[in-house]
């Protein structure tokens, strides 16, 4: 699914985001990327979303070389990915339904198909009864679940999450992680960047540990 081969990212100001990182993620795998602030977690996610390009090395996602991908191809690459942000990035002037429907509208699906899939996604995150509300009417945890529904509604092959539980209390964080596990059980690869080691340790999935842009650990969490 994902292949990092000696991937490095250096910024024009001299800062090195990643040092020749190499690892693989199999299809359907659940993976945490952890490390302190500045370790390179966000850089790694930005590379996977083609928001940035590697300075050197080879980064393959579903067979596509993200170092060589053209700007015109990037939107189509991103349609294979679902992304969940720490701050949800919801549109507050749209209803929950319309927030979740956005990726499907971009795909140009029919209204009937959009409604069917949005209902299904909202059901999966237990928000079926909130479809007509606006994000401002929801709690932080519910907003995050709307973000997750939007990320999975187009049935992506890969789900990326950047500190998805950063603003949540432990109970809500565990609940959100449960949602990610449910999604993963349906076959979607899940990659979560998080520094919540306590939570990660409880879940017993593969964990990559970054430190100052270098991979210093690759194994099951809690071991």
């Amino acid at each position, binding site marked *: 699914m994902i292949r990092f081969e000696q991937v490095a990212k250096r910024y024009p100001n001299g800062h090195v985001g990643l040092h020749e990182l190499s690892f693989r993620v*199999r*299809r*359907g*795998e*659940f993976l945490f990327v952890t490390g302190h602030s500045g370790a390179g977690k966000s850089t790694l996610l930005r590379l996977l*979303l083609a*928001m940035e390009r590697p300075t050197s090395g080879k980064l393959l996602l*579903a067979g596509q070389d993200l170092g060589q991908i053209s700007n*015109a*191809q990037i*939107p*189509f*690459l*991103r*349609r*294979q990915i679902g*992304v969940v942000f720490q701050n949800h*990035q919801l*549109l507050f002037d749209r209803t929950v339904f319309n927030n979740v429907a*956005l*990726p499907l*509208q*971009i*795909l*140009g*699906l*029919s*209204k009937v*198909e959009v409604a069917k899939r949005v209902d299904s996604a909202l059901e999966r995150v237990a928000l079926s009864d909130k479809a007509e509300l606006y994000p401002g009417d929801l709690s932080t945890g519910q907003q995050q679940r709307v973000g997750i529904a*939007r990320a999975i509604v*187009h*049935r*992506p*092959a890969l789900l990326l999450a950047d500190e998805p539980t950063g603003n949540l209390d432990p109970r809500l964080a565990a609940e959100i992680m449960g949602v990610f*596990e449910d999604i*993963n*059980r*349906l*076959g*979607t*690869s899940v990659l979560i960047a998080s520094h919540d080691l306590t939570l990660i340790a409880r879940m017993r*999935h*593969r964990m990559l540990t970054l430190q100052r842009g270098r991979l210093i650990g690759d194994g099951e969490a809690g071991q």
Partner: protein
Amino acid sequence: MSATRSPKVSERVAPKPADPAPEKKKRGNDEDDGPDFGTLLRAWLESHRSSLLDSLRRLGKQPIGSFFTCLVMAVALSLPMGLSLLLSNVERLGGSWQRAAQISLYLKLDASSRDGEALRDQIKGIAGVAEAEFVSRDQALNEFQKQSGLGEALRELPENPLPGVIVVTPKEVDKPALEALRQRLAELPRVELAQLDLVWVERLAAILKLGDRFVFGLTVLLVSALLLVIGNTIRLHIENRRIEIEVIKLVGGTDSYVRRPFLYMGALYGFGAGVLSWGVLAFGLNWLNDAVIGLSGLYGSDFALAGVPPADGLSLLLGAVLLGYIGAWIAVARHLSELAPR
């Protein structure tokens, strides 16, 4: 790895080399062969329909702001268009160009009416001649007697002193071409004198050229202002929707998908401005017309200003929509690259 099923990427997502990329159809054996043309067309139309409705909804949310933007654009459109319409009316009042540039061929006194008619027919066949009219010596004398009021005195003359005349109307009004035509006509047999009032033609040409240039300059200036107005308005809309654009880009929206509602918005502003401008011009010309009719009546004329011809009105509307679209395109092209997801 906790997955119970590992479906292929292509089974769940429909990345396509075209925008938009609708869902692939599932078959019994779970294979797919991509969307058919009808599905793609429906998706494309649906995308445009929703962009248009979204733009209308957003304009409707700020009716006063939208109206004033259209009004500013309408004023910018109305000034050059109004001046151009007034110039057309002045041209109509002053007679056609061709009439102002007629060449009078005075024939020799010994040329008969038959000679004159033959010469007229010959002249009609010359390139650059739109019309040729022969006025015989007798016709000329009759007209002169009527117009001068010297009928009795002229009848005392031993013979008709007036020559026959062929009045030639050229096809084009262009000084060198007119002069060349005059010289050619002067060399024809039985022609005593070929007269062209070039000074009058030059003056008229200069006045109208000045008018045209003024209108052109004003049009360029105001069209630039209009593009700036629409560009700035669209830029503000883009700024207000920055987060939305970033999210759309992150979930796979192409640049054309992001651009589309803004282009519709620009075109809608242009349409509104075009309708307003048409209305302002129709009202303005109608308002002026009363005074013009009164003034021309004092000179014994029935001249009246023509309104906005439907063809000109439609051109104005189309031009306004096009300008709105272009202005929006420029604004979006300038700002879209700055809105890469962060």
